[in-house]
């Protein structure tokens, strides 16, 4: 199945690059095919995310009868490593290798961890649920092995995504970066959607044996896809190897201070955190909200997620196009957050008499907003990074983004459960707890908008100054129009 998937993807890429969005990403040096191949690492990241947050979440609670709180704790474990993304990114920037490699060794290590986590995960979960003889064994075996499995997968995902994005940024010219960001995001989404469908179909008739097959199958698929993605991406380079050897070792703290010295960098990270938190809280709640508050069936709520993803895709497309033509990332992020607020408003109103149409419109709008916001903030991070500090900058982006998204998902569930457990009249209606969460999201998006305004005030023309620093031509980047190149 997975090999068929990558085969189909490859065919798709070969068949009609001109019909694909982001096709104009290819430069003479880096053809689109190679970038598409590289972006397969995002598919494995999406696969791991879906497996952890979606599929296993349900399987552990429903089929394995693990207490929901324990499941939540286990699934939150990978979050511990999210801040370490900064360190991983930095390490890949200053990596010393006789082969002149910087990114590939780290992506490979991350792949190993991902594989390892998946390889032991099914048995760890069975031990955790007291399957077979494990029921009589000591409890700590299940706890510790499941924790190790989730930590390994989490660490692997963080490494692969951070360093993979850095490699993608290395490969293309600055004016093409918005399109690479779009491509990477689309592949992440694609990986998530496809693997959610595949996992759903494969686990429909659950059995312990099937669980082992599915999770270990994803382990093999992860290694295969990542190997294929990495093949011949980073050139062996003796000149660079010599430079690496002679380079003065930089301290992490100095590099970090240097990064945050960039005008507006700190505010940018705050904006990313607030906005991602705001959008991220909705992901897990839309389906149960549709089911409980609006009476959607399971099949219909699954389509909701598809609708959300469609909105996000459109957002990526628009952001890629506009930013590729030289638009300012921050105004795009502002637009994204601005669309998200009425989106959540519509979702709240739908349970207060607005009806299903309002709900669907709201879902599409939030997806669109999240797409615009995510793309714009990642592009802004890439632009703000110096050429030799891309790993660190993307690590900082990933640390903030992954932490905020993970906290959002966790908090959304907690807030909902707390309100459900409250005996007051607030908890009486099915939609009330969800609406409280959606209100919180609106609040955070408003905070993000406020932060964007303070960012643009604090550093007037951030992108212009950055552009002048890095490019020999002091003219601002917007004048270059890479879309024409295609």
């Amino acid at each position, binding site marked *: 199945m997975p090999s068929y998937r990558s085969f189909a993807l490859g065919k798709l890429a070969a068949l009609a690059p001109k019909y694909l969005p982001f096709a104009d990403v290819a430069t003479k040096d880096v053809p689109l095919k190679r970038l598409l191949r590289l972006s397969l690492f995002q598919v494995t990241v999406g696969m791991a995310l879906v497996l952890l947050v979606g599929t296993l979440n349900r399987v552990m609670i429903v089929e394995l009868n693990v207490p929901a709180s324990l499941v939540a704790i286990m699934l939150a474990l990978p979050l511990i490593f999210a801040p370490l993304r900064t360190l991983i990114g930095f390490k890949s920037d200053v990596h010393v*290798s*006789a*082969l002149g490699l910087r990114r590939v*060794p780290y992506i*490979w*290590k991350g792949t*190993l*961890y991902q*594989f*390892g986590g998946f*390889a*032991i995960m099914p*048995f*760890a979960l*069975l*031990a955790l649920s007291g*399957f*077979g*003889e*494990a029921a009589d*064994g000591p409890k700590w*075996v299940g706890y510790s*092995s499941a924790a*190790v499995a989730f930590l390994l997968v989490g660490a692997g995902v963080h490494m692969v995504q951070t360093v993979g994005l850095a490699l993608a940024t290395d490969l293309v010219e600055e004016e093409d970066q918005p399109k690479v960001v779009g491509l990477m995001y689309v592949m992440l989404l694609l990986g998530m959607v496809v693997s959610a469908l595949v996992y759903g179909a494969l686990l429909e008739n659950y059995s312990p044996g099937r669980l082992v097959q599915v999770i270990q199958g994803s382990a093999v698929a992860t290694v295969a896809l990542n190997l294929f993605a990495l093949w011949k991406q980073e050139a*062996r380079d*003796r000149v660079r*190897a010599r430079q690496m050897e002679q380079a003065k070792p930089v301290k992490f703290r100095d590099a970090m201070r240097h990064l945050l010295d960039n005008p507006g960098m700190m505010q940018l990270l705050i904006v990313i955190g607030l906005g991602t938190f705001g959008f991220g809280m909705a992901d897990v709640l839309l389906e149960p909200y549709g089911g409980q508050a609006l009476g959607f069936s399971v099949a219909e709520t699954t389509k909701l997620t598809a609708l959300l993803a469609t909105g996000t895709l459109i957002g990526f497309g628009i952001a890629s196009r506009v930013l590729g033509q030289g638009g300012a990332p921050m105004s795009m992020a502002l637009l994204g957050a601005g669309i998200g607020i009425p989106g959540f408003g519509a979702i709240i109103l739908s349970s207060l008499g607005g009806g299903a149409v309002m709900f669907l419109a709201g879902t599409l709008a939030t997806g669109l907003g999240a797409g615009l916001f995510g793309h714009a903030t990642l592009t802004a991070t890439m632009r703000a990074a110096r050429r030799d500090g891309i790993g660190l900058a993307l690590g900082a982006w990933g640390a903030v983004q992954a932490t905020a998204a993970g906290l959002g998902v966790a908090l959304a569930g907690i807030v909902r459960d707390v309100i459900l457990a409250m005996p007051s009249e607030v908890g009486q209606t099915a939609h009330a707890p969800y609406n409280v969460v959606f209100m919180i999201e609106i609040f955070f998006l408003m905070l993000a908008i406020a932060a964007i305004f303070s960012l643009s005030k604090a550093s007037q023309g951030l992108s212009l100054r950055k552009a002048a620093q890095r490019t020999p031509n002091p003219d601002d980047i917007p004048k270059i129009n890479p879309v024409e190149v295609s």
Partner: protein
Amino acid sequence: MADDENRVWPTGLTLREAEEVHSYLIDGTRVFGAIALLAHLLVAFTTPWLG
């Protein structure tokens, strides 16, 4: 044997490059081995065989 650091051997690699390639192989083998061991222990824990 390896007097010249920069000598390129018939493999197309210098000694240090070859050592680095080798280190990836060794690391990979170690990680895969540890994972396999752990996985087998867990399987034996849930569904013991030979026993």
